[in-house]
């Protein structure tokens, strides 16, 4: 079974390069190439390829938004984002918008063809390099890596005053800051410890050994 592939990228040479790479594969047929998203949308209405290679950084359109619309309109077409951006926010946003895969522009022919064949079957697929970016991102930001939240020095100070039963006004006076600032520090502390009120805050802070 032959897989038809469409390519939307405003860099003409990339378009050509990708098309040439794909033309050497026997199972893949290049269905259409567009440098402008409007032309692409027009052609998709008539006939829609199995797989679409979509650039994020388009001249007159936002690739992420476009991906969202296209994946809704053509649920049977698998979209692969092809971009020079290697930041996790782009990868996540594209996947969230319905892309089945994300490739960096310096992908190899082998990787490209494997990806196309995999997503054609409706599966999601990420090459190792992209997977690593996402992995590093989530390893760097665990939701609850330790039970002790990170506090700034000022927050620690305020926490101690709170545990000594000082009011916001008193703390403000001692630290030469406004009451509103103290209030915001207090709210942040509650949210950092995931507690509802001062009693909970003091209890959690004592458990964490931050106050005695």
């Amino acid at each position, binding site marked *: 079974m032959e897989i038809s592939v469409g390519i939307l990228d405003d*860099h003409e*040479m*990339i378009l*050509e*390069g*990708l098309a*040439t*790479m794909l033309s*050497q594969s026997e199972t893949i047929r290049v269905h259409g190439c567009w440098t402008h998203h409007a032309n692409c949308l027009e052609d998709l209405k008539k006939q829609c390829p199995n797989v679409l290679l979509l650039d994020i*950084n388009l001249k007159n359109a936002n690739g*992420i938004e476009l991906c969202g619309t296209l994946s809704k309109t053509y649920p049977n077409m698998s979209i692969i984002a092809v971009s*020079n*951006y*290697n*930041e*996790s*926010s*782009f990868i996540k*946003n594209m996947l969230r918008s319905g892309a089945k895969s994300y490739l960096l*522009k*310096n992908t*190899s*022919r082998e990787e490209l063809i494997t990806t196309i064949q995999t997503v054609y079957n409706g599966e999601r697929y990420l090459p190792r390099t992209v997977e690593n970016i996402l992995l*590093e*991102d989530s390893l*760097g*930001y665990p939701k609850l890596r330790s039970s002790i939240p*990170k506090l*700034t*020095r*000022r927050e620690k100070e305020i926490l101690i005053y709170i545990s000594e039963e000082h009011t916001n006004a008193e703390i403000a006076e001692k630290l030469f800051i*406004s009451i*509103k*600032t103290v209030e*915001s520090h207090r*709210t*942040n502390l509650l*949210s*950092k410890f995931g507690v509802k009120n001062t009693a909970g805050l003091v209890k959690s802070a004592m458990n964490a050994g931050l106050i005695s």
Partner: protein
Amino acid sequence: MKGLYFYGMLQTNLKNHIYLLKFVIVFFLIATGRNGFSQQKEIDSLKQLLLQEISDSAKVDNLMAISRLYQSINLDSVLRYSKKTAEFSESTNGYRLAEAYNNMGACHFYQSSLDSADYYYQGALKALGTNNDSITKSMVYCNMALMYGNLLDTEREIEYYLKAISQVEQNDKEVCSIYYNLSRTYMNSGFEEKGLQYLEEAYKTSKRSKTEIVFDYATANLAYYGLENSDDEMFRRYIKEIDSLCALNGNPSSCYSLSYLNASYNAKQKQFYRALQEYQKANAIAKEINFSEDIMETTAMIARMEYALGNKVKAVKTFAVFDSLYQSSPDPDLGMKNFNLWAVYEASLGNYNKAYEIRLKWEALKDSVFAKEKREILIDSEKKYETEKKEREIAEQEVIIKEQELDLANKQRQIAVWGGVGGILVLLLGVTFWTGKERQKRKEQEIKHLKTQQEVVRLESLVAGEEKERIRLAQDLHDGINGDLSVIKFKIDGVDKKQMSGTTTEGLNQAMNMLDNAINQVRRISHNLAPPSLQNFNLDEAIKQYASKMQTVHGVEIDFQTFGEIPNFSADEETALYRIVQELLNNIIKHAEAKETLIQLNHTEEHTELVIEDDGKGFDTKISKNGIGLQNIASRVAFLKGDLHIESSKEGSTFTVRIPKKV
């Protein structure tokens, strides 16, 4: 007195609106309002005078006057006499040399030899040197602007108009026509707001200085702008003025504008018959003044009205008249606007061949219009000028500060004198001293305020300029070079490896790896220059990405937490905050030897607070305060109108940036 050389010209802007804008061209030094016969007589008598024994300066004056008088008769003679003037002036005392060069430049300009024109204009500027003849200087600049306009170099066109304006800003009579020309340039390039602003300036200055022709044009255009933008109040306000101009002075140009505007108004109200009558009136006046563009414009409008009234045959015939006028003096803008319509009219009568023929003419014209290109250039020059303007503001403020400081010094001296006055004045002295002190305090505050204001203005232009440059560079790298590198990789990847030896394949694979390396490096550089997350998402996301990257690369622990809603920061402000985080984090990684770093962004009702803390070895805040890194941070903090607080000890450092919420 300086004269205006002008010809009527209807320009269209990008939206295909017709603005009544006409060319006003600043040209020679004196206007000539006399008829050809008396001019010839005057020239003859001046030539007689040349034969007599007169002083060198008088001779220059005389030659100059002759060249001026030829202005409406024969351009070649103007050029000849200007040349004579220049030669004579050069060989004697250089008296009025710049003016002579300017006139020669203008002659060449009208003969379309722009290189020569440029040469003489430059010569004029050189001849002026440090001379403070601001009027001549402004005129040369203005003529150069016209020249650049002709070369479609809008950037320089605007630059030179602005230069011209800066020379004669206080002189309403001189400056009004330049404002007018500049507004025309802006309007034609699609910058309506700027165009309108300068049009209003032209209106004000020409009204004050009673410069009739500019006042006439400016008012008519303002009225037309009101009409086009459905601002009835504006339309009425200005058309009243034109009405009185026409009624009082019987000035044909004003009367033309009045009829034309009334016609347009009626056409807009779909009162086509009335509109037709008014256009016919305008057409008659245009014929009287003999402005070919005006005649063509009104003819075309008449055709449109006929068509709207259902007289298709008449409409087509009128367009044929328009075409014959067009053949003798082609005006691409007018052609663009009308040929298309004419084709439609012909087609509606079933004359398909004719329609096709006209349509082809239109297509050819369309291709020759550079509108888009022009607009892009303009955006750049706009930015550049804004920076210049800010610099000027800074200079002005510096002067104010100097004055105030002087004032303050005087005050202080006064107080000292008062202190010497004895006994009886003791009470008085007390009072005066007190008020003096108060006033001194107030003055000091004012100075401080001005100084911060000045600082902010400077920083804004600095920061904006730097960021703009970074983004441009990043884009070139990211989209340009990296795109190309990827294509090269594709090409190598596409080579058929089956027929190659093992070593060749290995070489190819190595080359591909090297390309990957290069691509990654370019990507890293480009993303450092302008973080894509910041442009595509928001500050939180960008900081998160950066922290994550630094953590992976340097193996240190970096936490990032944010509280509250990001307030409405502008892109510049977000970038400034991002750069502060970037710089501080870099410093920490380079110098602090920290294990953990905490970045916290806290948006509250009162302010946004950025805290960056490390558990490193700390530093001496007194010594490091002036390091370049910290200076960069300080200038960005100042740009955000915030304050920076640094604490450091052996246990680590805390950097706190607080930005008050905008009111």
